[in-house]
Structure formats: C-alpha cells, structure tokens
C-alpha cells in the first residue's frame, strides 16, 4: 500500500518534511515531544541515522516510534555502518512494521564523529542502496535469492545543489534517479537564485524535489556552516541580517528568514516542497511554517 507520504508527493501539493534526531541514550522524552508536536503538521518526518557519525539511538527505532505515535516516518539509512546484508535485513524489518519511506545516503566518514577509530563500511553507496531497494521490490535479495514476503518503499536520496565542483555531483544525482529515487531532499540552500538555476536543470527528471532549509540560529552558526559544511553557502547578506538581530533575538530572526524562504519557494513554485532541518530546535518548526504561511 502506498505510504501517505507517497500519496502526498503524488498529489501535487506543497510538501513539508522535517527532521527528528533520535537521542544519545534511551531517554526518548524529547524525541516523543518533537514527534507529538510535528506529526500532524508535516507530511513526513526524517529520522536521522547517527547524524554526523555520532552514535545514537537507531533511526529504525525512531521511525518505529513515529509510527506508533501515528506519524509518517522517513527512515534515513546510511551505508556507513552496515554491509549489504545488514541493510537488507533492516529494510525487511522496516517493511514488516509498515515503515515505507526510505532516504538513502552514503553517510559521513566515521572520522567526523565520536567513534573515530571505528571501521567505516561503505559496502554499498547511496545510489546502490536505492537500486537494492528496487531489486528487493521485485522479490529478490542482492544475492539473487527469493524473498518470502515482499517490500515496497517510497525511496529518496539527496543532492547538494551548491557542491563545488557541481558537475560530478549532478552525475551522481542522475544515477540516483536512474536507480529509482522518487524524491530528493537537498542539502541546505540559502541562495534561491542558485536553487532556481538548479531546478531549471533538475525539472527534466521524473523526481520530486524538496529544498533543504536549515534554521539559522545565530550569525556565528551561519559562519561556522560556511566554513565547515560542504556545499552550504550562507550569503553575506543573510549573515549580516542574522548579526543585525537584537541580543537574544537571533533565533526569531532565523525563523523569519527560514519562513520567508519557504514562502517564496512555495509562492513561486520553485520546487515541490521543503525539508526543514531545525537541528535540535524542532519545537520552532511550527513557527517557521506559520511565518511561511503554510501552517
């Protein structure tokens, strides 16, 4: 049965997804709180998979929690920690619990996280994981064996529209679509003119594109991302705008900027929706949506 997220994608409405990070430990109170707050406001919520290679409660457990609470999860799966056998097993488990949306990522290096000496796996890459899902949907595993009981997923992947250099990234993007990606959530974009020119190119492909929106929480945070996050460029005008916020009001300014961008993306129909990443400040996602006029 098609997931509610897949139906929303096909409906042509403006899609909103957000992110929920499972905890470092077993205390799920904050995660539950965020899910409760957002589950009826967004079309689906992504459960991050050891984001930035920091070991946490599994995305699969988070997705199950969203399901139990009546929300629509998008299970993020990276190729960093599991080989093709473990990834397939987790996909079987997800399907058996009606978790039907998967976002396929390669995953950050373990060296960037909190278990630097761990072995990075990368048996598959993101495009091969998308392809693996499509093979499993035909009733076979990657070893060519029959599956007893099938799977069906709404499958997505990511792209960095401002990668430098861009061309190799776009070739990979096209391979993900060729492998069967139905939706794409982008890395954070702040320059909507650049997003438009990416969309001029991307529109030719049969895939729904949700623009990544990372909430700016302060001017130093924006500068930090410019320096440290690949493919994220906060223009000087926005950094200055954040810096102009009165003391203690930077978050409000960030919410205003995110809301303004989403409003423009929606009104000008630049792409099919947005993926809001509030990075630990999930409680303000409804405020961002209100500012965007999509609450």
């Amino acid at each position, binding site marked *: 049965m098609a997931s509610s997220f897949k139906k929303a994608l096909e409906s042509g409405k403006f899609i909103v997804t957000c992110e929920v990070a499972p905890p470092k430990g077993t205390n799920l109170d904050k995660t539950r709180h965020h899910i409760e707050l957002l589950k009826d406001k967004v079309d689906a919520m992504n459960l991050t998979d050891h984001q930035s290679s920091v070991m946490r409660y599994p995305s699969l457990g988070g997705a199950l929690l969203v399901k139990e609470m009546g929300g629509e999860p998008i299970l993020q799966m990276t190729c960093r920690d599991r080989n093709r056998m473990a990834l397939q097993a987790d996909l079987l488990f997800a399907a058996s619990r009606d978790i039907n949306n998967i976002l396929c990522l390669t995953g950050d290096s373990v060296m960037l996280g909190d278990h630097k000496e761990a072995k990075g796996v*990368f048996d598959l890459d993101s495009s091969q994981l998308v392809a693996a899902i499509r093979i499993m949907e035909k009733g076979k595993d990657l070893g060519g064996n029959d599956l007893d009981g099938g799977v069906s997923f709404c499958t997505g992947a*990511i792209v960095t529209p401002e990668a430098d*250099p861009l061309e190799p990234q776009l*070739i990979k993007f096209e391979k993900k679509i060729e492998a069967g990606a139905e939706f794409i959530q982008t890395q954070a974009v702040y320059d909507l003119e650049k997003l438009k020119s990416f969309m001029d190119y991307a529109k030719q492909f049969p895939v729904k594109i949700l623009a990544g929106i990372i909430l700016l929480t302060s001017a130093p945070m924006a500068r930090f991302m410019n320096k440290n996050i*690949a*493919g994220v460029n906060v223009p000087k005008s926005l950094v200055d705008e954040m810096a102009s916020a009165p003391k203690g009001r930077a978050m409000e300014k960030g919410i205003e900027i995110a809301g303004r961008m989403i409003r423009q993306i929606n009104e000008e129909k630049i792409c099919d929706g947005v993926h809001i990443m509030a990075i630990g400040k999930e409680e303000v996602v409804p405020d961002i949506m209100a500012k965007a006029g999509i609450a």
Partner: protein
Amino acid sequence: MIRSITQQKTEEEIERLLSGSIRVFIIGCGTCTTLTHTGGEPEVTAMKEKLSGKGKMITGHVVVPVACDNLTGEILDEFGGQIEQTDTLLIMSCAFGVQTIARQLHKMVVPALDTLFIGKETGLGQYNEICTQCGTCIIGETGGICPVTSCHKGLLNGPCGGTNNGKCEIDKDKDCVWTLIYNRLNELGQLDLMRTLHKPRNFLGEPRPGKLIIQNI
C-alpha cells in the same frame, strides 16, 4: 617503483613493546624505510642512542639491504653470536620485512614502525597510496585513477556529499578522487563511463589471506 610507506610508532608504544626486554638488536632496511627516513642508517643510530639512554643493552645493529628478501637471513647469520644473546629484535623495516625476519630467526620481533600503505614518492617527502590490491581492478572505467584506493569511502558511483572545493571531507589536503576522475574522463571525452551506474563491489576478488598458485611453471 612502489614502496612500502612507514611511520615510526610512538616512543611510548615502542617502550611498552620492549618492556620485558633488556638486550635488544636493531635491524633497519636499506630500501623502503631508508627512502622514507624511518629505518635507514641515521634512524637506526638514533634509535640505538635513545634506547641505550633508557637502559637497554644494544647487542648490535645493522641496516640490511632489503629486509623482505629471503637473503636477509643469510646476512644476519654474520651477527649470529650477537643475536643469540638478544632478547628481542627491534625491526625498523615495513611489516613485510619484520615477518620475513621473524620466519627466519627464532627470536621475538618488535616492529618499530607502522606500515601505512603501499605507495609512491610523489614529491620530496610526500608519499601517496596508489593501489590497495583489492583483486577486482576497475580503473579501466575510471580513467586509470583508482577510487577504491583514493576515495576515503571507496565509492564507485561518484563523489559523496562531503566533498568540498575538490577536496575530501576527512582532510583538506587530500584530493577528492571523484573530482580527479571527472576531470580526467572529461579531458578524454569519456564522461559516459562516469554516468554508468556501477553495481556493488565484489569483495570476493581474492579472499584474505591472499594466496595464488600458478600451475605448470
């Protein structure tokens, strides 16, 4: 010519590995570790002085021409008496040399170096890994540049999202190999090779431990 690229272990680790040994014989190598300044004459002499200062009795030292060569055993025969009186051989060659010596002499061996990779000197004091000997060579499709070795994640289908300014997400001094492959294939008018969706890698190329028997020779 490919070389075994090594780096000296920390003083603390060498000290720990030698903690039960009083009489130590030091062996360097005249080939790879001389090139990398990790196990040539100057490094062996410096190690001798350092360990003497820490109270070890150095029963002898030598730099053999090629530690990984089977002739090394015969060369070391000349030092039979000194080695006989030794608790431990501290070896300043790559791990291949250490294992060759360990097979030939009935003595405990301690490597003074970590073997980092098989690589090439690409500039003064600069060494790059070239091949990981994976057993399933794919560089016919990548313009002769190996992503299995030179992509941190060994990816076959293009760059990950961590690449920035053509560099790798783990180190700004390391090139993103997928930028290099893209540029090479673009120059050669062969970008279609990069557009091919590659299947998952075959890790069965030659299962470890590698062993090959050629018949009829």
